[in-house]
Every structure is written in structure tokens, then in C-alpha cells.
């Protein structure tokens, strides 16, 4: 393929990334962040899979079999098992505004500058070769696709131009904002997109090889079994196999936690701690997917290129090219390209922050002349230093690639980088779980581990490149056989990487542990140790608590902030902070909380160590003991807890009061209703009682009453007694409805039958009064569910009311019944005296006498209608009346056929 075409494709791909990143930045400016999405977060973690994964997994599988998996098992274990560690690191970094692993370690051990420098150097030691490795992959893949020989002249080397583009991209999306705590939304989105692309590309080649070139997995394995060369891929060497799997997995675990680029995406770019939950399953899934086809491709490559000496690192490209499938080869190239560029961009941003904050800034701040420059326009200076760092790092990677990596495989460079990064493990893990860990201990551990690393891994590589004599390998350092790089203290039986991992961590941990026990912490170290280890206990109080004491002028602190954040932004931030914490900033000396907060803001920009320097340069500080710090933190915690509790309590009380009030209202209401009912009932009872008493007294006192009159009085007494007992029965009945004691017996009822029965039982009475009863009843009405006695009670009540109010000897009562709209309708119509409008509603009410009301409802209806209404309600039905005075009344009720009792 023409190298210009492939060069253009690479440029187009980068342009595409530019657009993705640019759009994401634009969206985030419009407050529509794409990055605040757990999927993007989980995908961005897959920056772990570099070109080393994309090309190197196959390469490693073809020499070491399944061993390549260790690199992916480690991170998967982190996600499942080391989740609390990850969460703790994220929480600490957020509360302390830490922006890199260097910041993290130096901040933990008393904001120590030299530690920051040391960590930065270690990151450079791991990062530069790693970047070189990516460039090598790009270059190799480019070479294979275009079938060109690599040119040592930089100006005609295409990789050089890609490097320039990468520098531009990284500067553009990595240094837009000087505040490193501000997230790089464009960059993260681009990385997530790259993760998808490399997965698709690897899947494409995997499916092509497995299902198009061969007949599935089984076919490949069957064919491979026939080959001597491939057989060893299935066997794990028992001798060193187990220990190697253990050490390599452990190594990958630590690399995943502490590699600068991983720290960047997992911790610094984390928007929400909750996203880790998503990453917990999504990232391991990604790991599984990207590894599914490694073995098939490896075996297929072995079968296809048997004995032709084709570089197994490049099988994924060589196979499609071998079968002249150029399109797939290009897709694979893009996949590898995206894996490589993703790594370079994130790693460079992460390391450049460290380099500029920990190496360049402190140096600049130390030089009087440059200090002035910084004071004049600090954010420009910082931006410049970031950009300088980015350029330097990528170029260093490029030169490393150009002049050193030629001689080493992708895997060995990668693993060497892993081992040095693993040196952070004791100081970081010790730092977040062990308060006793000291700065000197951490320093000793880091230095010791790195020295051992240099001795066990770098010296041998220098030997093999011919830079130094191989004497040291065979006879040991200074001729001491215990000091052979690959057999330190006579240890054999391990592969070089496991061997190095074991000894570096052994020395590192021992030095850290004993170094910490032998040295004392300064007060600031002590404070930070407590804040780190007990972060979950204090994280909410940290911002508001004073862990600093001293004197600083408000104006000094403000101008310090202004120079880095700009006047308007500073003004805003300060105002918000002052209001939130109720601090008066119009004083001469700054409130300690404000100084503390400012330092944290600054450390987000220039790193912990530099921020510490700046603040101490304007403040007269006093030492503050740990006891005081803990006391203060505890107080603020307690205060917050108490506040929260109080708030909650008062909320509860308010709610309770409201409930109480409502209940009281309800009670008052019920009370009033009860009162009304009672006075109604007593009134109703007293009325017949009055007649009975008065007439009895009259009869008793007057023996001379005429016989007919006496009969009339006695008859009245009997009637009034009946009325009284009826009333008492009704009250009891109604009480049963009210208290819910009433039992409705559900059965299939025929409405016509009920009407006939009720008419039968009052027919005699009607005849006596000379009132006719007419029935117009639909014979085809369906049965309905209800309580026979109760419906009968309603009918009788309506009929007896009608009889009572209809004029004797000429009145007519008409009953109609029919089905309509899924309900049964019954009307009882009389041509009696009628009911005036105001009473029409009142008559269904058991309280005809609302409070203080003295207008009486038409007499005689008693509580019958109120009871009828309740019976119908229990059948989901309704009852109502239409009436005109002097013309008669029409009482109607309806029962839905599908009533649920």
C-alpha cells in the first residue's frame, strides 16, 4: 500500500478524534457533559489496553502461551476485589484535590517536595519507554502495511509527523485549563471512543481469522495440535508457571492502580464515585472481549506462517495482508493506532502535570528572575510549562523509540515499566491504611525499590545491548556471585520479571516499613496521615475544618489566588466560600479555613508541594499538633452530625405537629359530628317522649275525659312509642354502618322479586289509605350481587315514605325498574307534598341539624334515608331525589351490575 495513503488515513483518524474531543468540550461548556456518564468512564479505563495489548498479546501468546492473560487478570481482580482501595484513593484525591500519583504520595507524606520529584522521575522512567513502545507499534504496523523499510532519517519518517500531531492534540485538549482538577472532557471522550474502535477492530480480525479463514475455534485448535511449535502454547510450565502467574498478576494489579495514565482516567477524571460501580463489571467484560480472539489468532498465525519467521507481534496485520484483505488490514491498523495514540495522549497529560508541577515549577519558583515572571502572568507560565512538558515527554519517547527500542520486544519494555510503577504500592497502600507510615520510610522504600529495579532489569538490558560488559551477568556485581542481576542472592527458578518484582517489592516494603518505624513524623505529615487513612470519617469535614493555623493577610492570599485563577474567578470563588462558611473576609488576617481552602485550590493548579511553598511564603505559620487537628475534625464532624440530627429532629417534629394538628382537626370534626348526631338523636327521641309523657299525665290527671278522646290519646301514645323504638333501632343500625360492623351477605339477587316482595308487605297499608301502587318493571333485568335484606330495607323505606307523604284516597305511587349503562335503576315516584329544594340533600343526611341550625327537615323520614344511602354505598350504588313542592317526589337509586362488595 502507498505510504501516503496510509499517512492520510492516520491523519484523518486523528482529525476525527479532534472532532470528537472538540464536540465533547463544546457540550461540556454548555453544561451538557458527556463525560458524566458511567459508560464513558468505564470505557476510558480501557486505555489500559495499549498497542501492547493490541499487537503484543498475540506476540506474547505465541512465545509464552496463556501467560499473556496475567496482564488482564490483574486489573479484573482490582475491579472485583480491590474496589474499596480504588474508592478510597478516589475519595482522598477528591477531598485533597490531588491530580497525579506524585501529588498523592507527596501529599500523604507531609506534602514533601522531594517525594514528588522522586515519583515524577519514576513515572518518567516507566512512561518514556512505554510511549516509545507505542510509537514502535505504530511504526512497525505502518512499515508492514506499506512494506517499506524504516528510515532512520527523521524527516522522512512518518512516525515523526504522527508525533507532531499527537503533541498538538495533547496540548490542545490537555492544557485548555490550567487547573488540573478540572476534567479533560474532550480527551476522556476521545479515549472512550478509541476504546470502542480498538475493540471493534480486534473483533473484526478475530472473526475474520476464526470464522472465515478457519471453521471456528475448534477447527483452529485441531489444526494447531498437529504442529509441534504450537503445542507448547497449551501447557503451563509447572516449575515456574505457578509463581510466574502469581507475580505477573500481582504486577498487573499494581500497574492498573498506579500507572500514571490509569491514575489519570480512574481517579483524576472521575466525575462521580458511583461510576466505579459500572466500571466494576464493564471493564472486566471489556478485558474478556478483547482477549477472546488472542489465542485463535496466535494459533492461526502459527499455522499460516509456519517457519517463515514472521514477527508474531504483527500477526494481526500480517494475516489479512497475507490473504490480500487490505481493507481489514487498514481497519486493524486503525485499531492498533487508536490503542497507541490513546495511551500516548493520556500518559503524556498525566506525566506532564507531574513534570511541570513537581520538577519545573519548584525550580522556577526558586529562581528570583522567573518568580517575577510567574507573578506577572502565572497561568500563562503554567500553561507554557505544561506544554513544554508534553512536548518534551513525547519527543523523549520518540527518541527512545528511535535509538533504543529497536533491540527489545514490545513485551519486555511493557513489563519493565510495570515493575517500576509497582514501586508505588507500598507507599500508597501503606499511606492509606497505616497512619504510622513516614516520609523517610516512603522515600527509602521508593529509592530502594527503584535501585533494585535498575539492577535486576535495566542492567541486563544494557548488557544485552552491549553497553556494558556481560561480566556482571555471569560473575555478579564486584565479582560477588550473590549479586547477579537475574539471580539476586542466589535466587533461581523464576522468570526475570517475577524475580525483579519479588526483590524490588521485598526491599521496597521492608525499607518502607522499618524506615517508618525508625523515623518520626512531622506534624503536617501526621495530619495528612490521619486525613488519608480516615478519609471516609472526615471527608465531609475536611473543607470546613481548620487543619492549618497561622497568620496570613487576606490581601496576600487573594492576590495569590488571583494570579492563578484570574481576578473575576477569584472574586466569585471567594464570595461563594465566604458565604457558605459564614466567614468575614473584610478582616486584615485571613480566616484559617480560607487559607486552607486556598491552598487546596492552588494545589489543584500547581500541585501539592508548590502550593504548600506558595502559601507558606505569604503566611506566618504556627505548628499545629495532631491532637488539635483530630480534635478540630472531630468537632466539625460532631457539629455536622448534631446539626444534621437537629435538622432531622425538627423536621420530624414539624411533621408530627402537622399530623397532630390534622388528627386534632379530624377529632374535632368527628367530635362535632358526633355532637350533632347526639343532639339530633336526643331531639328525635325527646319529641315522641314528650307526647307520651304529656298525654299519659293528662290521662292520669283527668278521669273525666270522654271515651273517644281517651282512645285517641292512648292510640297516640302507642304510635309514639312505636316511633320511639323504631328510632332507637335505626340509630343502632346506623351505628353499625358507621363503625363498619355491618356485614353484607353477597348473593345473586333478582331485583324484580325484591320489588314484588316489598310491595306485598305494604300493600295492606296502601289499601287502607286508598293509595294505588303501579309497577313498570323490565322483566329481562339480569341478576346482581347484593344483600337481599338490605336492598329490601331500602325499598321498604322509600315505599313507606311515599305512603306517608301521599294524599290518602287519591294518591298514586309508581315504581319503575330497568337496566341502563351497566346499572340497575329503580325509581319510586309519588304525587305527594314534595320536598323543597333546600331539604333535598339534607334528607339523606343523618344530621338534619347542622350545628346551630334550627330549621328542621321534613318530619317523619327519620334516619331511614341516611341508612338507605349507606346501604347503597356498600353496593357501590347511589341514591337521589328529584322533587317539586306540591307535585310529588321521585326517589331513584342505582346499583352497578359489576359492584365489588
Amino acid at each position, binding site marked *: 500500500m502507498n505510504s501516503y495513503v496510509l499517512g492520510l488515513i492516520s491523519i484523518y483518524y486523528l482529525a476525527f478524534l479532534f472532532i470528537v474531543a472538540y464536540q465533547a468540550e463544546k457540550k461540556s461548556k454548555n453544561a451538557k457533559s458527556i463525560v458524566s456518564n458511567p459508560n464513558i468512564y468505564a470505557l476510558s479505563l480501557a486505555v489500559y489496553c495499549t498497542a501492547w495489548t493490541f499487537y503484543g498479546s498475540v506476540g506474547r501468546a505465541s512465545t509464552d502461551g496463556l501467560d499473556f492473560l496475567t496482564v488482564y487478570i490483574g486489573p479484573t481482580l482490582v475491579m472485583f476485589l480491590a474496589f474499596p482501595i480504588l474508592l478510597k484513593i478516589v475519595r482522598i484525591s477528591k477531598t485533597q484535590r490531588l491530580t497525579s500519583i506524585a501529588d498523592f504520595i507527596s501529599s500523604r507524606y507531609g506534602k514533601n517536595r522531594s517525594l514528588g520529584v522522586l515519583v515524577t522521575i519514576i513515572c518518567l522512567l516507566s512512561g518514556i519507554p512505554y510511549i516509545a513502545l507505542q510509537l514502535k507499534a505504530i511504526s512497525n504496523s505502518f512499515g508492514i502495511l506499506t512494506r517499506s523499510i524504516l528510515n532512520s532519517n527523521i524527516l522522512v519518517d512518518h512516525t515523526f509527523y504522527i508525533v507532531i500531531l499527537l503533541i498538538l492534540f495533547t496540548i490542545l485538549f490537555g492544557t485548555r485549563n490550567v487547573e488540573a482538577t478540572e476534567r479533560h472532557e474532550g480527551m476522556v471522550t476521545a479515549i472512550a471512543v478509541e476504546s470502542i474502535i480498538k475493540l471493534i477492530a480486534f473483533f473484526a480480525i478475530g472473526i475474520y481469522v476464526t470464522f472465515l479463514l478457519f471453521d471456528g475455534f475448534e477447527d483452529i485448535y485441531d489444526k494447531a495440535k498437529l504442529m509441534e511449535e504450537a503445542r507448547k502454547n497449551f501447557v503451563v510450565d509447572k516449575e515456574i508457571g505457578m509463581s510466574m502467574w502469581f507475580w505477573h498478576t500481582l504486577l498487573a494489579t499494581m500497574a492498573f492502580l498506579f500507572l500514571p495514565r490509569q491514575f489519570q482516567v480512574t481517579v483524576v477524571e472521575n466525575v462521580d464515585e458511583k461510576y466505579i460501580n459500572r466500571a466494576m463489571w464493564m471493564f472486566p467484560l471489556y478485558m474478556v472481549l478483547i482477549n477472546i480472539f488472542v489465542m485463535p489468532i496466535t494459533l492461526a498465525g502459527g499455522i499460516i506462517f509456519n517457519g517463515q519467521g514472521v514477527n508474531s507481534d504483527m500477526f494481526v496485520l500480517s494475516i489479512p495482508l497475507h490473504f490480500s484483505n487490505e481493507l481489514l488490514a487498514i481497519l486493524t491498523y486503525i485499531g492498533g493506532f487508536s490503542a497507541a495514540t490513546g495511551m500516548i495522549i493520556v500518559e503524556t497529560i498525566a506525566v506532564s502535570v507531574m513534570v511541570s508541577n513537581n520538577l519545573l515549577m519548584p525550580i522556577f519558583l526558586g529562581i528570583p528572575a522567573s518568580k517575577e515572571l510567574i507573578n506577572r502572568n502565572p497561568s500563562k507560565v503554567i500553561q507554557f510549562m505544561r506544554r513544554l512538558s508534553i512536548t518534551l515527554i513525547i519527543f523523549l519517547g520518540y527518541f527512545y523509540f528511535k535509538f533504543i527500542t529497536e533491540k527489545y520486544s514490545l513485551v519486555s519494555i511493557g513489563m519493565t515499566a510495570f515493575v517500576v510503577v509497582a514501586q508505588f504500592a507500598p507507599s500508597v497502600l501503606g499511606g492509606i491504611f497505616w497512619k504510622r507510615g513516614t516520609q523517610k520510610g516512603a522515600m527509602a522504600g521508593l529509592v530502594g525499590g527503584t535501585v533494585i529495579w535498575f539492577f535486576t532489569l535495566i542492567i541486563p538490558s544494557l548488557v544485552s545491548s552491549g553497553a556494558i560488559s556481560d561480566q556482571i551477568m555471569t560473575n555478579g556485581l564486584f565479582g560477588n556471585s550473590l549479586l547477579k542481576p537475574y539471580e539476586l542472592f542466589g535466587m533461581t527458578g523464576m522468570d526475570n520479571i517475577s524475580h525483579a518484582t519479588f526483590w524490588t517489592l521485598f526491599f521496597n516494603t521492608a525499607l518502607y516499613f522499618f524506615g517508618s518505624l525508625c523515623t518520626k513524623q512531622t506534624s503536617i505529615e501526621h495530619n495528612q496521615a490521619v486525613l488519608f487513612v480516615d478519609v471516609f470519617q472526615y471527608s465531609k469535614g475536611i473543607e470546613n475544618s481548620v487543619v492549618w493555623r497561622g497568620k496570613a493577610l487576606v490581601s496576600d492570599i487573594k492576590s495569590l489566588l488571583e494570579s492563578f485563577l484570574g481576578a473575576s474567578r477569584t472574586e466569585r470563588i471567594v464570595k461563594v466560600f465566604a458565604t457558605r462558611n459564614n466567614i468575614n473576609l473584610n478582616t486584615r488576617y485571613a480566616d484559617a479555613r480560607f487559607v486552607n481552602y486556598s491552598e487546596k485550590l492552588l494545589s489543584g493548579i500547581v500541585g501539592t508541594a508548590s502550593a504548600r511553598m506558595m502559601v507558606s511564603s505569604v503566611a506566618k505559620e504556627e505548628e499545629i499538633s495532631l491532637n488539635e487537628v483530630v480534635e478540630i475534625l472531630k468537632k466539625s464532624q460532631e457539629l455536622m452530625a448534631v446539626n444534621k440530627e437537629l435538622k432531622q429532629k425538627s423536621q420530624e417534629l414539624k411533621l408530627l405537629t402537622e399530623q397532630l394538628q390534622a388528627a386534632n382537626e379530624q377529632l374535632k370534626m368527628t367530635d362535632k359530628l358526633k355532637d350533632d348526631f347526639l*343532639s339530633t338523636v*336526643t*331531639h328525635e327521641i*325527646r*319529641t*315522641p*317522649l*314528650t*307526647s*307520651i*309523657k*304529656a*298525654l299519659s*299525665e*293528662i290521662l292520669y*290527671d*283527668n278521669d273525666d275525659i270522654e271515651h273517644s278522646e281517651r282512645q*285517641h*290519646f292512648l292510640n*297516640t301514645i302507642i*304510635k*309514639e312509642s312505636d316511633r320511639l323504638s323504631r328510632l332507637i333501632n335505626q340509630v343502632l343500625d346506623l351505628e353499625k354502618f358507621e363503625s363498619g360492623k355491618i356485614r353484607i351477605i353477597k348473593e345473586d339477587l333478582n331485583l324484580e322479586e325484591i320489588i314484588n316482595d316489598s310491595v306485598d308487605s305494604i300493600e295492606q297499608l296502601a289499601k287502607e289509605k286508598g293509595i294505588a301502587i303501579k309497577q313498570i318493571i323490565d322483566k329481562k333485568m339480569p341478576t346482581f350481587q347484593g344483600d337481599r335484606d338490605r336492598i329490601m330495607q331500602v325499598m321498604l323505606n322509600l315505599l313507606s315514605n311515599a305512603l306517608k307523604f301521599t294524599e290518602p284516597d287519591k294518591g298514586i305511587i309508581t315504581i319503575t325498574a330497568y337496566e341502563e349503562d351497566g346499572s340497575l335503576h329503580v325509581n319510586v315516584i309519588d304525587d305527594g307534598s314534595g320536598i323543597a329544594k333546600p331539604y333535598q340533600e339534607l334528607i339523606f343526611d343523618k344530621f338534619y*341539624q347542622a350545628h346551630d341550625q*334550627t*330549621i*328542621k*327537615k*321534613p*318530619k317523619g323520614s327519620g334516619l331511614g334515608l341516611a341508612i338507605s344511602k349507606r346501604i347503597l354505598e356498600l353496593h357501590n350504588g347511589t341514591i337521589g331525589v328529584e322533587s317539586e313542592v306540591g307535585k310529588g317526589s321521585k326517589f331513584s337509586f342505582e346499583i352497578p351490575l359489576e359492584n365489588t362488595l
Partner: protein
Amino acid sequence: MNIQKNIKVLIVDDEPNILLSLEFLMKKEGFIVFIARDGEEAFDIIKREHPKIVLLDIMMPKVDGYEVCRFIKGGSDTKETKVVFLSAKSKEADIEKGYSVGADLYIPKPFSTRDLVKKINMMASGVVV
């Protein structure tokens, strides 16, 4: 017994059986008895007959007893009329309200016929009860 010959008594109640007993009692004492079944009927009789004593129920349809009492005590030619409330409302507040609208006597139902007769007789002869 028939001393009160020319004294007019109006009985206002919506309960026919109570009217029955009251009418008997008053007639027996020799009063000239008028009957009204609600407040409106009462107004007509009061305007027309100017009874000396009105036995008045409170809870009635259309116009209640308080209204009737206020009418009596508010009219220049009727304010001398004695008003006796006969009511089943027997709470202290009810009685107080009865007197506050101008009643001369408040007798809760059910009442003692002998007691009632005695009090009405005293009232008819000008004794303040």
C-alpha cells in the same frame, strides 16, 4: 277553674301529637287557644289575634322559634306578649340563647304537664315567673 276566660294563648309546634296534648291542657285551663304548625302560620295569628301568651317550639320547618320570638319582641304592638319556649333542645347554651332572643320562660321537653300549667297560669295572672 275558668278564671282565664278571655286570655288568648297561641301554641306553635310542628308535632301534631304535642299540639294535641298542649291544646287539651290550655283549653282545660280556660284559655282561648290558637294553633300554628309552623313559624309562618304563627306570624299571621300573632298579627291578627295578639295572644297574651305564646307557647313556642324552636325546631320547625320554614321559620324557627327564635325568629318568631324576635318578631314578637320586636313588634311595638306585640312586645308585651309573653313567650314560652317549649323545646327538646335542652342544653345550657340552648336555654341561654332562648332567653337572649327575648323569651320569658324556657321549658325543656319532655315537660311535666302540671308544672307547665301552673307556670302558664301564673304568667297569665301577671306574676313574673
